[in-house]
């Protein structure tokens, strides 16, 4: 950490403001401080800004560019493709598969975010009612699940729902819920997506629960007590006190969940052994297959552009809220 005479690291320079007021004779040094203070923040953010610009900004620009080009394997070698205007988009919007995949992705996101939020909220409320030992145990369990890498989780679920020796088929049969022996869950996309949803919701619950529990414990107890004395039941307390107080937190969690679930790729790709059937395609898989399996980089880029657009529209409220937080503080 370098601290030059001008104080590049900056924050001690804040105290220079006090010195400025107290000792007017040292004006020359003060101006030097002032210059350093103007330049310091730019020096501090420069590396981060450069990295983000080079590895996120440029590819984002390139993505838009590619989507307007005929860019296949030959163009990958030539490094430049001919401009074809909006042909990729025209083709995309006339492709029935695109609309099917888009709709499927919307439904998938809605179901996953909904289940994650509802179950996460319920478990967080449960945490507030537990004894201290049980709370520690459950929190530890949640942290354990949270820390499990997605790739590992996919393999565990793949093993649990294995049609021959999976523990799920055996358990369901033993519980007399029907004959599940040798049931292949992925033969039908509906049950296949049920497994994928279970996998994603299972993995997402810990984060939501722990964040919400932290939020719940900050709700003033007097408020809840006063409401209970007035005869409000648990649901009323949640609806009229807890939820309105924690609304910003809910908005953040829902938005983050939408972002994560809308672009799900790994879980689908890996649970289908790197060759997902068309019935399992979500937007990210669709784009990936077009680009890396069929060599249609331009067309794949157009799909990705639509993804980015939808994502920005869906998260607009969140971005606005976060920016407000960032500016006022």
């Amino acid at each position, binding site marked *: 950490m370098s601290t030059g005479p001008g104080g590049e690291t900056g924050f*001690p320079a804040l105290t220079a403001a006090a010195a400025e007021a107290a000792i007017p004779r040292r004006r020359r040094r003060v101006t030097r401080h002032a210059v350093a203070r103007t330049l310091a923040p730019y020096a501090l953010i420069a590396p981060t800004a450069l990295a983000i610009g080079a590895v996120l900004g440029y590819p984002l620009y390139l993505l838009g560019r590619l989507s307007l080009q005929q860019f296949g394997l030959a163009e990958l070698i030539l490094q430049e493709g001919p401009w074809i205007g909006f042909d990729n988009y025209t083709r995309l919007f006339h492709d029935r598969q695109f609309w099917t995949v888009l709709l499927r992705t919307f439904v998938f996101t809605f179901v996953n975010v909904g289940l994650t939020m509802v179950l996460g909220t319920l478990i967080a409320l449960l945490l507030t009612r537990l004894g201290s030992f049980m709370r520690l145990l459950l929190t530890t369990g949640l942290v354990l699940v949270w820390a499990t890498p997605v*790739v590992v989780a996919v393999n565990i679920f793949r093993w649990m729902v294995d049609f021959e020796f999976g*523990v799920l088929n055996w358990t369901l049969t033993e519980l007399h819920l029907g004959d599940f022996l040798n049931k292949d869950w992925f033969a039908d996309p509906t049950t296949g997506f049920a497994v994928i949803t279970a996998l994603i919701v299972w993995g997402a619950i810990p984060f939501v629960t722990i964040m919400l529990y932290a939020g719940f414990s900050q709700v003033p107890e007097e408020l809840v007590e006063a409401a209970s004395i007035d005869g409000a039941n648990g649901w009323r307390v949640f609806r009229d006190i807890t939820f309105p107080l924690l609304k910003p937190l809910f908005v953040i969690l829902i938005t983050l969940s939408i972002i994560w679930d809308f672009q799900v790729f790994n879980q689908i790709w890996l649970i289908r052994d790197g060759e997902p059937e068309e019935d399992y395609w979500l937007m990210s898989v669709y784009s990936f297959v077009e680009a890396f399996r069929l060599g249609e980089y331009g067309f794949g880029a157009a799909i990705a552009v639509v993804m980015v657009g939808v994502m920005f529209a869906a998260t607009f409220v969140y971005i606005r809220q976060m920016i407000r937080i960032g500016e006022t503080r």
Partner: protein
Amino acid sequence: MSAILPRRRSRRRIAGRVGWNALGLLVFAVMVFPVYWMISTSFKTGQNILRDTPQWFPSPATLANYRDAMDRPYFWDNVKNSVIIVCCVVGISLVLAFLAALALAKFSFYGRGAFIVLIIAVQMVPLNALIIPLYISLSRADQLNKLSGVIVTYLTFVLPFTVWTLRGFVMGVPRELEEAAMVDGSTRLGAFTRILLPLVAPGLVATSIFAFIQAWNEFLIAYVFLNDQEKQTLTVWLASFTTSRGTDWGPLMAGATLTALPVVVFFVLVHRKIAFGLTAGAVRG
């Protein structure tokens, strides 16, 4: 009457407590079961894994699956790659993010608002949507199949979040503390190393864990950018257990346990430390 009433109520409360705790135990069991099933399978013998009735506890327990997993080609190469990538990403991102966080927390400057917008908006960009242009630009820069290309990419995806979180931690340090140190005759560097740095330390730990987990768990970029098996990372290595002949569940579960272990240990150990208040005990009231 008035003496009985509270007792009755407390008995009811205890019954409720027990009910909630039982429900808590059930939720715990359901959530943890998949992890338990992975570990338990990894210690079972081949025969006991492929049984019509599942075996709940591994007996006899065996380490054969672990030996098998570690003897697989490229296991140690891939461990080494994962470690190198994670160390570089955590180290570099922490330094860069800390600098930017200082700028955001301690200065008001022209363009600050724009930078904040950038940091937040960038987090909304789906990584999976950028894989195509990233692939093409890295291939132009001759960075495909190289760890450095992956490191730079991970770094950028980790940075926005780390900057944002560290900014919160830096702002959590009361300005009076630094000023007091300066009044007490501390130099600027002294105030920095003795006051700010220790107080921000939990934040640095929390942020580095985040970066660690992101880099260790990432799959798609490593899968697409690193072609040679000896260049790949552990998460990609795990996919090699499934062949056309089927899946080797025992060694796969052993490999999965080994992959998850560093993250889980790190996470569970430090998780409670993060919970400590930032300036707990430094300034009261």
